Structures are given as structure tokens and as C-alpha cells.
């Protein structure tokens, strides 16, 4: 009896499931075969499969605001200058330029015969319109401040003017002007030694001014997207995938070897890594931490540690006792064993940091941070003396218990725990850990409502200034309450200094003050560990960008 019942139930279920999968199959079979044939015919072209991680917020150069947006844009667009694989600034859309003696007026001559992907010729006005659109307060671009270097750029962008005529006046005053079709004049607010470098950044890319004026939403769809770079944007399936194909009109097209690049949008690092292992992706970045540690230990040939322009550090709240005391801050910083943290805790090939500015930024000669050297040492014995001295100066007999604040993340937690243990062991301090959501952490840092807080900074451009000017007393990013007149003076002087040698000296001096006053304790310099299939050749990783594949090749 029971068996009969079971059998009939099972039978019913099987019928049901066959029915369902049958329906499901009918609907999907077509796409399945269509895809197979597409894959078969595409067997010969060179297709690179990358993972963009998430859906871009915008692919308009003026509204893009992060690596999920910029990675594709960098492959389909090109600015006045570009970065060579060796990291040098070279000619892009501009073939020549002159700089005025005071360093504030640049005149660019554009490349001849460059066409947009819709056939329009590229003209100087494309840059003028692009930058003015970016700076227009009505555009509300998050990265508009990248163009504050232009004369009157900030005045236009920060204007609350509602009268259109007056707003137009402000717009006209912005320091960018097409003198003729092939000549662009750029006036800067102040001399900026790294301006040519900035021009290679996607915020400064041009847009086709005719398209921009006819349809401001042109960048929201692959079919209306117009570009001037090595690839053309052809397909955008939201939150699923994007596709770019080689631009046959590109001036340097002979050097472009790939036919297509496909971007998946897989947010989960583990999944992306599994897809890489399963040959569904050609590159996996970022990698899960345990995978990084494992590949690094095995010295896997597909494993690459890419350079990164970013520093992981702890902030001290210098308005709170005893963190107002420099000796206390120094003692805490000097008890952090950065080598152990990098090798046994973070395990991502990071570099211990003894300065705020990371390696990889050119100095007048050599590397800026190499030239600085390590500005302090891991020295628990010395730290104990400093702590005792500092506490005495503050009239305290014992270091009070305090809290390390960090935003919730397994990685930050492990590092905080390691530092907690180091401070307990070497200084006999009791520290509590507190994790909060990222937004709450930012809010509390802003209000100086913390004692020690975990932080990090990714450079906006490749110059020590992007790190050092954070700790000017007027900077909104200071968030430590630290004020130092000498430091402020050096940063201000360096910002206006045209002489590269003395400017470099001022920045070095500022770094030294920062590291002897220690309102922050640098911990490590980030790296970008990734894996790349061995058949992908000639890619390169600029220090402040994702890996670039403009000139890459697939050799199987």
C-alpha cells in the first residue's frame, strides 16, 4: 500500500518536473544554440574575458567616478596625453604642446585625421565642451574637482547661480578654449607640475561635442556611444556583461591585436576566481585573501603582484588625551610590527609602510619614497620609553584603555586584532575593537568621535601631493585634529612652486614632519594581486589604474 502511494507521488512529481523543465528548455534552447554558434564562429578572433565586478554607474567620462566605470572607458577613449607601458606620459590626442613660462598656460596641437567612432572628425572643441560640461554645477559630477586645476574651474562648479546668463559668464571664464579646430589653449589656476599626467586621466577625456549637444544621454547606451580610442563599445547588458570591439579607425590600430574584450560583472571574488580556474575568465582581480596567500606561497607563475598607489593607515584623534601627545603617538606607531602584519596577517604581497606616500612616484631623480627612506623603525624598547615619557608629560600614570574603530571587514578585523595584541604585549595597553558600518565610520571620523581609527587612501594622481595635502590643517580629509603651521606652510609653498627640485624638497620636508609628529600611523602600502592567463601578453598595470589591455595580445 505504502509503496504504491510512494510510487504514485513520485510519478506525479516526475511528471511535474518534466513538464516544468520542458517549458523552461523551450524558452532557453534557442538562446543556447544561438550562443553556441556565436561561439563557434568567434573561435578565431582574439577575445579577452575580463571581470568588471559591478555595473558601471556611468560611462560618460564626465560622470564616471571609479574603477568600475573607468576600466572600460580607458579602453574606448583617449585623452590629450596617455601613459606608456613604462609609466611615462606620452602623446595621445595631442601631438605637441607648449607651456608658458609661469607654467599656467598650455597650448596643445591635436593629432591630424582622428575620427570619432561615428565618423565625425575630432576637434579641439570636443575637449572644451567636455570639460565645461563636467564643471557645470547642473551636471553634478562627483569628479568635477579633478578639473579644479583649470582657471576659474572651481568658481564655475561651486556656483549656486540660478540665472542662466550669469552662469554662462562663469562658464566662459573657465580656462579652456578651442583656438581653432586643432589648437586647444588651457589656462590653469596655479602651476601644476603633474598636469600632463592628469590629462591622461579619464576625467579629462574629450566627448564628441555634436553628439553631446544633440543627446546628453549618449553614454547611457552602447548603440549611441561615441568614442575615439582603440576599441568601440558595442554591447551593454545591465548588471550582466559589456562588450567592446577593435576600432578599425583608430590611428594606432596596427598595434591593437585583440579583436574583442568582454567584461563580466561578477561581484563575488571567489566566484570570479572559480571562473578563472574553469577557463571562463582570463584574469581574476581582486582575488580572495586566502587564494592570494596560497598563490603567493606557491610562487604561481600566473600570479602577479600589481603596483598600487594607496596606503593603509591608522588615524589618531589628536584632540583627545593622551593622543594629543606626540610621544604617545610615536610609541604606539613604533610598536606595530608591520612586517608581521604584511607577511602573516594581510598576506597580499603588501609593503610595510614607514611613510605616508607610497612607492612608485617619480622624484626629480629616482623614486620619491625610496629617496625619503624609512622615517621611523619598529622598536618596542624605544617605544616603551617614549610612552612613559609621554604619559608623564600628560600627568597620567597609566595609558587608559581605548578603542580601535574600523569599518566592518574580515581583513580590517584581523589587522586590528594583530595590533591589539602587539600593543598589549609590548606596551601593556588594553585595547578594545569596535567595528561599525563604513558610512558610520566616515561620519565619526568627520566628527572626531574616535580614539584610533582605521583608514586608507588611494592617490587621485601620481604625485606625493595627493597624499600629503590631506593633512593640511584646512583639509577636510585631515580628520585627526592635527594642526601644524610649518607643515601647512610647506604644502602651500609646494603647491605654488614651479621649480621641481625645491618643490620636491618641500614635500620631503613635509613628509618628515608628518612622520615625526605622527598624527597617523602608516601600516602598509596596498598592492593589487591578480592572476592572468599565460597566453595573455603585453598587458601593463599603471600604478593608479587597473591593468591595461590596449596593446595586449592572445597567443595560444
Amino acid at each position, binding site marked *: 500500500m*505504502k509503496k*504504491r502511494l510512494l510510487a504514485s507521488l513520485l510519478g506525479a512529481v516526475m511528471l511535474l518536473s518534466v513538464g516544468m523543465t520542458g517549458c523552461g528548455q523551450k524558452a532557453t534552447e534557442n538562446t543556447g544554440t544561438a550562443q553556441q554558434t556565436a561561439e563557434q564562429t568567434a573561435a578565431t578572433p582574439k577575445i579577452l574575458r575580463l571581470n568588471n565586478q559591478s555595473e558601471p*554607474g556611468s560611462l560618460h567620462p564626465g560622470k564616471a567616478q571609479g574603477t568600475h566605470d573607468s576600466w572600460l572607458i580607458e579602453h574606448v577613449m583617449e585623452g590629450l596625453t596617455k601613459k606608456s607601458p613604462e609609466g611615462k606620459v606620452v602623446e595621445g590626442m595631442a601631438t605637441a604642446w607648449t607651456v608658458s613660462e609661469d607654467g599656467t598656460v598650455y597650448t596643445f596641437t591635436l593629432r591630424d585625421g582622428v575620427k570619432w567612432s561615428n565618423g565625425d572628425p575630432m576637434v579641439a572643441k570636443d575637449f572644451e565642451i567636455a570639460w565645461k560640461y563636467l564643471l557645470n554645477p547642473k551636471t553634478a559630477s562627483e569628479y568635477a574637482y579633478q578639473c579644479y586645476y583649470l582657471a576659474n574651474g572651481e568658481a564655475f562648479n561651486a556656483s549656486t547661480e540660478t540665472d542662466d546668463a550669469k552662469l554662462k559668464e562663469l562658464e566662459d571664464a573657465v580656462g579652456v578654449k578651442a583656438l581653432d579646430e586643432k589648437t586647444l589653449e588651457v589656462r590653469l589656476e596655479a602651476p601644476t607640475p603633474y598636469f600632463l599626467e592628469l590629462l591622461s586621466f579619464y576625467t579629462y577625456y574629450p566627448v564628441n561635442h555634436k553628439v553631446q549637444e544633440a543627446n546628453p544621454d549618449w553614454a547611457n547606451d552602447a548603440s549611441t556611444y561615441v568614442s575615439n580610442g582603440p576599441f568601440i563599445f558595442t554591447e551593454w547588458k545591465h548588471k550582466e556583461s559589456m562588450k567592446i570591439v577593435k576600432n578599425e579607425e583608430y590611428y594606432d590600430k596596427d598595434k591593437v591585436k585583440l579583436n574583442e574584450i568582454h567584461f563580466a560583472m561578477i561581484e563575488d571574488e571567489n566566484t570570479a576566481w572559480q571562473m578563472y580556474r574553469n577557463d571562463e575568465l582570463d584574469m581574476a582581480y581582486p582575488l580572495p585573501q586566502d587564494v592570494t596567500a596560497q598563490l603567493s606561497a606557491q610562487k604561481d607563475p600566473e600570479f602577479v603582484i600589481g603596483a598600487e598607489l594607496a596606503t593603509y593607515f591608522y588615524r589618531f584623534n589628536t584632540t583627545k588625551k593622551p593622543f594629543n601627545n606626540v610621544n604617545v603617538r610615536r610609541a604606539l606607531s613604533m610598536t606595530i610590527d608591520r612586517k608581521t602584519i604584511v607577511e602573516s596577517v594581510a598576506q597580499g604581497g603588501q609593503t610595510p609602510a614607514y611613510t605616508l606616500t607610497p612607492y612608485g612616484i617619480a622624484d626629480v631623480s629616482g623614486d620619491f619614497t625610496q629617496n625619503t627612506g624609512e622615517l621611523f623603525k619598529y622598536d618596542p624598547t624605544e617605544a616603551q620609553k617614549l610612552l612613559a615619557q609621554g604619559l608623564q608629560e600628560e600627568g597620567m600614570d597609566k595609558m587608559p584603555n581605548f578603542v580601535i574603530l574600523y569599518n566592518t571587514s574580515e581583513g580590517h578585523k584581523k589587522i586590528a586584532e594583530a595590533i591589539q595584541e602587539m600593543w598589549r604585549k609590548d606596551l601593556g595597553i588594553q585595547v578594545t575593537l569596535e567595528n561599525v558600518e563604513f558610512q558610520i565610520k566616515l561620519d565619526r571620523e568627520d566628527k572626531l568621535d574616535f580614539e584610533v581609527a582605521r583608514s586608507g587612501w588611494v592617490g587621485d594622481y601620481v604625485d606625493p601631493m595627493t597624499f600629503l595635502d590631506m593633512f593640511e590643517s584646512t583639509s577636510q580629509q585631515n580628520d585627526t585634529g592635527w594642526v601644524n603651521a610649518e607643515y601647512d606652510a610647506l604644502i602651500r609653498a609646494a603647491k605654488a612652486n614651479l621649480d621641481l627640485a625645491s618643490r620636491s624638497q618641500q614635500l620631503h620636508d613635509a613628509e618628515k614632519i608628518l612622520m615625526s609628529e605622527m598624527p597617523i600611523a602608516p601600516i602598509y602600502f596596498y598592492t593589487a594581486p591578480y592572476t592572468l592567463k599565460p597566453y595573455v601578453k603585453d598587458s601593463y598595470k599603471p600604478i593608479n589604474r587597473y591593468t591595461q589591455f590596449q596593446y595586449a595580445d592572445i597567443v595560444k
Partner: protein
Amino acid sequence: MLKYIGKRLVLAILTLWVVITVTFFLMHAIPGNPFAKEGTMPQGVYENLQRYYNLDKPLHVQYVMYLKALMRLDFGPSLKSSVITVNDYIKNGFPVSLHLGLQALAIALTFGLILGVIAALNHNKWPDYVSMIVAIVGISVPSFILATVLINFVAVEWKLLPVATWKTWKHTVLPSISLAMMPTAYIARLMRSSMLEVLGQDYIKTAKAKGLSQSVIVIKHAIRNAILPVVTVMGIVTANLVTGSFVIERIFGIPGMGEMFVKGIFNRDYPVILGSAVFYSGILIFLIFIVDISYSFIDPRIKLTGGGK
């Protein structure tokens, strides 16, 4: 019946309004703002963004603006995308989540009910123990672990199915199974206990005494009565399944709407938070309504009336 439906409709709109109002003021009360980043942005840029998205207006003005837009079924822009609006999020994401959710629901119902019935019919014998062990494992193993294990073995080691993304039916198998695990176990346990209770009732004994066959007793008398508690929870279970799972969709790279619920809050993307709350409430209210109606079909003793039951 019509009176009943009308009354429920009014209640539904009232509930939605309460959800919108509470969510609106709660989300503005939590610290943080949509444009916060490590390293503050210049004041000018910040104010432009505030103006652009009308966040500079007083809260009650924003609230009225939102309600007015909602009347036109406009959920507003996402503060994190200049390409996709909240309507697009739902329009693109919901069909995908619905597809995945329905497949998971079919799996969960089929296996949950079978396991539950088998367990009850073999009370305290080995099939019971096996079913309940499966159910306990299903409840206690988080879906992301199951998903990771499935990817590692089925996709990478054995190469039977693709790892992730959302293309052919093959891509839907692993996420559907991962998503179905938990509700399967839940339904199985519920069905078992409810079935055991019903099997002990006098009318089952009567049916047996009348000499009805075992299959008639089980299907016509036992399951029909025992299934009511399962139907009751189906509203919530279905609503959860069809509106997408953040975890499963993230792990399998599925372009559903599950991420709205989590990322909206994380980014303080106000229109996304509101849109997801309104949409989810709407679906939930609708499904609970369907469940209530279906009672009267399964159990004729239940009458739907406009007044007190």
C-alpha cells in the same frame, strides 16, 4: 467576496503608505550620506549633487515629492547610477529574480512536501530520520556555503555545469538548488509535524474503519488538511524567493534585484531603499492575499467575509 477584496485593497494601500512613511523617515535618520567617501569631496561638488537630487530640500518637501512621483509609479533615480533608475532596477532585475525564485520554489515545494509526508508516514522509522537529518542540514547550512561547495565540485572539479553568470538554463541549475535548500527543509519540517497531527485525528481513524484505501486516506483526508500550515507560510516564502537573494545572486553573478535591498542601505541610496521596500511590501501583501483566498478552496469550512470572520 467582492466586499472582502475591496476591504483588503484599502488595507493594502494603507499598509503601503505606513511602510513608505516609516522607511522614509528612518532612512534619513541613520547617519551617513549617499555621497560619502573615504576623503571628503569639495563642498561645491557635494552641494551640486544635493541640489541635483533634491536632497537639499526640507525632508517633508522631499517626502511629498516622493509620494507624488510614486502616484505616477516613478520610483526615482538611483543616486549611484546616472544610467539606471530604480524603475529599471526593478524592470530588469525582477524577471530574473522571479525566474530563479519560481524554480527554487518548485524544487522546495516538491521535495519539501515529499520529505515531510514520507517522514510522517514512517514516524520514528529510518525514512523519518533520514528526512529530518536532510531537513536539519538544509536549515543549518547557509546557502552561500552550499553555493560555494556546488561551484567548486559540480562546476570546477567535475565540469558538469558553468560556474556563474545568467545565460542558458544550465546556468540556472546551481543557483536554484542553492536557493531552494532552506525553504525545502523548512517546508519538510512543517509538513511532517502537521501531517503527524492530522494522522492522529479521529476522522482518519473513521476513514480507516470505513475501509478506505491508504492512498485515498493520505491524499484526500490527511494531506489536504495537513497542508494548510504550509500554505500559510507560502506567502512569505514565495515573496522572499521571487524578490531575489542578495547572497545567491552575488555568488552566481545573477543580474536580479536581490542586491537592491542590501546595496541600497549600504550606499544610502535613498530612492533604492524606498523602491525596494515598497516593491517588496507590495509583493508580500499580494501573496498573503492570494494565500487567504486559497484557504477557502482548500478548506471549504473557511469563508471569506467582509466583516469579522
